[in-house]
């Protein structure tokens, strides 16, 4: 092979047009193509659902509009909790745990990143903490806290409501995840930033506070929001302690009326909460990506 470019070995210039089939998918035609494909796919999904042998049964048991409404508002005379009200419980459990998680996660990350010899035992403990609670299924943590602490009989620690134990368990587990997210954020800041700050004579703490953390925050927000979205969903797990939140109310409704439409309501309500947050997270990720691609 000659070590050079091909200087037009054939008498005619090479053909540069795309094939007919590929041209169908370019520009305005591409929009048409994607619309058609969306309609077909959606049509297939709906058709399968409607025409399946058990379709009617599923629609009756899961998507009964009348019963869905009944589950949503509840009926105290028949002992039916409202799924809608239940969701309020999920919301406040989420709000409380969220604040605690963001705080304790930062504390744990800070300890793990510290350099002071005095903090050595705490560093070891913090590392063990993140290892253990990222490894134990959250359901087990909820059981251990919710049924274990009351058994211990130690003052106010053993006399709290199940919802409080639920929040405690969620906070314990999610703090471990969030601490790792913060730590990853710190490591995402280029090493040169640390060198520059330290060579100016800034202390480790000042470097963290003035240089590293402000930059880490930007990278950390999307993964942090992801964890918060799953925290929001996992408030449903606290139902195993007997807290009547949305899923538990749906379960009570289902076993009383022998219809699962309440679950559908709970699912829809959770989606209404999480979808804005997932969309927002994706938006942030896309913005960050385009910034990076623009070389900023």
């Amino acid at each position: 092979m000659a070590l050079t470019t091909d200087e037009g070995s054939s008498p005619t210039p090479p053909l540069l047009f795309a094939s007919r089939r590929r041209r169908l998918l370019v520009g305005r035609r591409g929009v048409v193509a994607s619309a058609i494909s969306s309609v077909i796919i959606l049509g297939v999904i709906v058709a399968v659902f409607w025409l399946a042998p058990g379709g009617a049964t599923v629609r009756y048991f899961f998507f009964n509009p009348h019963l869905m409404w009944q589950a949503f508002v509840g009926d105290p005379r028949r002992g039916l909790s409202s799924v809608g009200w239940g969701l309020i419980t999920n919301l406040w459990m989420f709000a409380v745990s969220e604040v605690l998680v963001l705080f304790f996660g930062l504390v744990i990350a800070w300890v793990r990143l510290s350099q002071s010899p005095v903090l050595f035992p705490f560093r070891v403990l913090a590392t063990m903490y993140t290892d253990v609670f990222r490894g134990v299924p959250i359901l087990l943590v909820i059981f251990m806290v919710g049924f274990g602490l009351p058994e211990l009989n130690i003052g106010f620690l053993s006399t709290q409501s199940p919802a409080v134990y639920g929040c405690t368990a969620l906070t314990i587990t999610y703090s471990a995840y969030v601490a790792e997210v913060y730590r990853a954020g710190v490591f995402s800041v280029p090493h040169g930033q640390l060198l520059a700050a330290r060579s100016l004579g800034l202390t480790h703490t000042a470097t963290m506070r003035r240089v590293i953390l402000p930059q880490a925050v930007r990278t950390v927000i999307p993964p942090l929001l992801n964890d918060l979205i799953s925290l929001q969903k996992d408030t449903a797990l606290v139902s195993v302690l007997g807290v009547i939140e949305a899923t538990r109310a749906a379960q009570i409704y289902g076993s009383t009326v022998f219809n699962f439409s309440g679950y559908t309501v709970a699912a829809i309500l959770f989606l209404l909460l999480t979808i804005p947050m997932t969309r927002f997270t994706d938006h942030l990720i896309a913005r960050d990506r385009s910034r990076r691609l623009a070389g900023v």
Partner: protein
Amino acid sequence: MGVVLELTNVVKRFGENEVLSGVSLQLHRHEVVCLIGASGSGKSTLLRCANLLESIDGGSISLFGQSLEDERIDPDLVRRHIGMVFQSFNLFPHLSVLDNILIGPVHALKRRRAETREDALALLDRIGLRDRADDYPERLSGGQQQRVAIVRSLAMRPSLLLLDEVTSALDPTLVGEVLDLLRDLAHHGTTMLIATHEMNFARDVAQQVVYLDKGVLVEQGTPEEIFTNPQHESTRSFLERVR
């Protein structure tokens, strides 16, 4: 002339790899010393050891006659007297140009922001970037960023400056403005230890040129001695290659 920085038989290893093998060097007040040598010859490591960003495995380093291996030494205090400028600028992207310059005086020296602000603006004035004080570094060209980085170190009023191949990451058209600033600093008696690949610049500004090869200080002398009459074969062949 007072000795500012003194390295005596400094040895540095990264695992098995010996990066500095017994390097001795003196830097006097108002003196400019240029370190030359191929990539990987130990120039950057030497600079990092000098301001304690790296620990050394043998020999000693002293600043104003005080050994930096002394247990009572506070590395943060040492670094406040030694400015360092990096190949990749390392300006803080989340801070404005002015805040990049103020962060050292305000958060390391604990001086009041209001009283250092004028000093910082005067420094920016000297490099012709006073009107860019409120811009973020990303809006500046590479040459401008590097000049801000130099001024950021100077804002600490250091006793000496370490410069680590500060023009190597720059577009060729922007190298000149940074070298001009360094010439200006040298002219005003700034004490500098400069690792560089710019031989003409080294010849112009340095009082001493040091040639390093694989962590060994092969030859040291005035620019005249090193560039026109190198004593060692490896110095000669290095200068052949960079010319």
